[in-house]
């Protein structure tokens, strides 16, 4: 578009419905130091007052159109999304324009959403999965790396945020040249273009400063940490290290390697921990794909008394992945799954819009999805081994376990080959 804003349209005519995602270069990675959480707070405040409408009125307008709107920020971008019947799309998009271009950020709502975030953080103290994720990130990254703390900010940073911080972040980041409108559904290219021009054509503003995603991957050494949850009937495990960025040249090799290791139900880690040993309801591994190097993590929850044994099996599977070429059968299970499941993943307009947004976020070529299946099939047992040796690092494995130290400390230490440190999560203050 003339003002630098991007428009991506995918006509899908099956049903009279359309999904919209607006992405803005306003994710957590763009936050100024000391303002952690301002990206998420800004995005969540967009529908809490815009133009002449307060948050309650805006919610009412959207919902009367059958289109409830969601807004959030992740590491890389902020996103506003909705799904509506085609007939309601122009009216719903006009409201989206208001909240993107004329948000009010009422003081009262700033305070309320901060309090709700603090409540969420407080909840997490007693929630093993969230607690494990948070402490694992802190064990992976140096404290000054943005990825070390949650994208929505922690209690210290969120408490300090002000309406002024939100206004400044909005002014710096929400610009047409940093915005992409994605529409997938029952609209033509021409209809979408007309809608976009009408609603956003006169939005002006300079390009924002580019976001620099710098992550220190040079950490070394192993770490084993127990986050104490006395009497926990299960241990919540996170085992891994800093992974690789979405833009890595061997992305497909790494993705297929992970599918074999722990990405699929029929993966080595899940079949070992769940089906052979019955240690867990499920065990999975993943690279968290971000612009910078996100975590590589094996996640599972196991009965407390098998914590050490489970860690030993996980470390063993990672070693085996690096040591031996996988079998042809294992490779084709992963590649034929990833290839064949492709159309099943994109049955809905919301899934198609999200896939297109992903192209924009990671600067992938327009023909990425056309070539996706070929690139999956091009992965070999050799390239999987190379990816495992390049991207799995037993020498810097970080093991974080939320569980009962009195039960697990000794066996965990034996399995990890080092004495775990024990951390007692601070209880945040609560008014009596």
């Amino acid at each position, binding site marked *: 578009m003339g003002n630098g804003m991007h428009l991506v349209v995918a006509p899908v005519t099956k*049903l009279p419905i359309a999904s919209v995602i607006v992405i803005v270069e306003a994710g957590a990675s763009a936050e100024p130091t000391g303002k952690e959480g301002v990206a998420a707070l800004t995005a969540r405040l967009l529908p809490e007052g815009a133009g002449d409408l307060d948050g309650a009125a805006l919610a009412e307008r959207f919902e*009367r159109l059958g289109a409830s709107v969601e807004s959030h920020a992740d590491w890389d971008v902020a996103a506003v999304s909705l799904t509506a019947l085609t007939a309601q799309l122009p009216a719903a998009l006009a409201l989206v324009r208001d909240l993107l271009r004329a948000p009010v950020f009422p003081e009262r709502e700033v305070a309320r959403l901060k309090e709700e975030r603090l409540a969420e953080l407080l909840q997490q103290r007693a929630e093993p999965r969230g607690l494990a994720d948070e402490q694992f990130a802190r064990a992976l990254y140096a404290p000054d790396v943005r990825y070390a703390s949650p994208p929505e900010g922690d209690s210290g940073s969120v408490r300090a945020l002000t309406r002024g911080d939100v206004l400044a972040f909005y002014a710096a980041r929400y610009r047409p040249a940093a915005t992409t409108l994605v529409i997938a559904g029952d609209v033509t290219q021409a209809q979408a273009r007309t809608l976009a021009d009408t609603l956003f054509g006169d939005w002006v503003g300079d390009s924002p400063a580019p976001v620099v995603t710098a992550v220190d991957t040079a950490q070394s050494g192993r770490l084993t940490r127990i986050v104490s949850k006395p009497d926990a009937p*299960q241990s919540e495990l996170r085992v891994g290290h800093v992974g690789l960025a979405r833009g890595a040249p061997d992305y497909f090799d790494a993705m297929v390697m992970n599918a074999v290791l722990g990405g*699929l139900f029929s993966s080595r880690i899940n079949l070992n921990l769940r*089906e052979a040993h019955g240690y867990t309801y499920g065990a999975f591994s993943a690279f968290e794909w971000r612009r910078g190097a996100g975590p590589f993590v094996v996640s599972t929850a196991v009965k407390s008394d098998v914590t050490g044994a489970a860690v030993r099996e996980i470390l063993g599977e990672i070693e085996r992945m690096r040591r031996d070429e996988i079998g042809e059968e294992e490779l084709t299970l992963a590649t034929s799954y990833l290839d064949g499941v492709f159309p099943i993943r994109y049955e809905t307009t919301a899934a198609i819009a999200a896939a297109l947004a992903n192209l924009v976020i990671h600067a992938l070529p327009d023909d990425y999805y056309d070539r996706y299946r070929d690139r999956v099939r091009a992965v070999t047992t050799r390239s999987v081994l190379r990816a495992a040796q390049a991207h799995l690092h037993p020498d810097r494995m970080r093991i974080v376990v939320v569980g009962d130290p009195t039960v697990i400390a000794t066996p965990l230490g034996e399995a990890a080959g080092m004495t775990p440190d024990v951390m007692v999560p601070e209880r945040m203050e*609560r008014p009596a």
Partner: protein
Amino acid sequence: MQISSMDIPIERFTLPNGLTVILSEDHTAPLVAVNLWYHVGSANERHGRTGFAHLFEHMLFQGSADVGANEHFELVQRAGGTLNGSTWLDRTNYFETVPSNQLELALWLEANRMGWLLPAMTQQKLDTQRDVVQNERRWSMDNQPYGTWWERLPALAFPAHHPFHHSLIGSMSDLDAASLDDIAQFFATYYTPDNAVLSIAGDFDEAEARAMVERQFGSIPRGAGKPALPDMAVPSTYGSPVREVVSDDVMLPRLFLAARSPVFGSEAYYAASVAAGIIGMKKGSRMYRTLVRDQQLAAEAQAFTYDLAKGSDLLVVDVTARPDTTVEQLEEAVHAELDRIVDTGVTADEVARVVTMIETDLVATLQSASERADKLSMFATYFGDPGLVNEQARRYRTVTAEQVNAFLRSRLVRANRATLLYVPREVDAATSGNELAMAEAP
């Protein structure tokens, strides 16, 4: 906007062995969904075997006469498909979505375990899946804040010995007691073609699909019939308020409230469903506006119906306190808001907001072949009429404010509120000492 023009096509037939088959063709994507509902769930479990229906679901992925352990997963994923199963109070379902040319693979896998499961069952597989399920229980309930609400709320809302009273996931000791004999007996009683509905939705040829179904399922014998469920009927209200306080390892108080409401699919259900939406669907709802936005007593608030098709449904309200809100404030505020909606009623505008959102959801859901197949199986299993899938939008559109208000006045009164209140362990001694004793004597 003519929703009626979007009706999905439905063909239906029954095999001589009693298997109900529903076909719904759609050629917009090269994929097909297979969905099998067995009309059995935790409600059918016998005394001392809570959790068995769900444990049994796990065993159905452990192979059958011609399928190895975990081969079901592997074959479907190798074919480029997705799959899973789930257990609910009164049904269990199994489903695959595969590329169009793999339809017969999915049908063969389902038929092989419907007809010839038992040769593959071993004590070792049962022991391992018992461990897996016990870990599922720990993961989803015992080691999760508020996780036990799944079994505590139905236990509060249905009387002891009612089929919906006991835990779906089961007690650890009942799971320990499950044996291979139980597997054989449950299989023979409930996993029979005449107790199942098979739906196929997506890109297939009708004549070919019929031939495949007959080939794969035709030789499986009809069952001998299953024992009837005990009388599911309960009074339409509790008669007086019900209340349980649970001291748990949580940081914030949270209140679950269940009102008995008209069963899923009944004429009165749709007004109850809309009422739940007005109370707690999204940010425009009463609970969100009042407790989260205006009074700022709650961090989250929602309401929904359980969608039980037998005995009684439940309308559930779920509100989590903010850190500075006391347990008493939370409870009073929720009751006050419910009193207000009962006393003053809802408006046509509020009804329209909810019905419009539900219509968008219905259309969005029907985009997926897997969802279409599941809905067809559901309506065929519960009501013998898969065509109801095409009636839902119309039924919602006929709901009036008067109907919603009549529902609220009869069902959301204090005498029909069962309250389950979670209290952080360290504050309960100071503020709720009396109730603590109550919670520990179930």
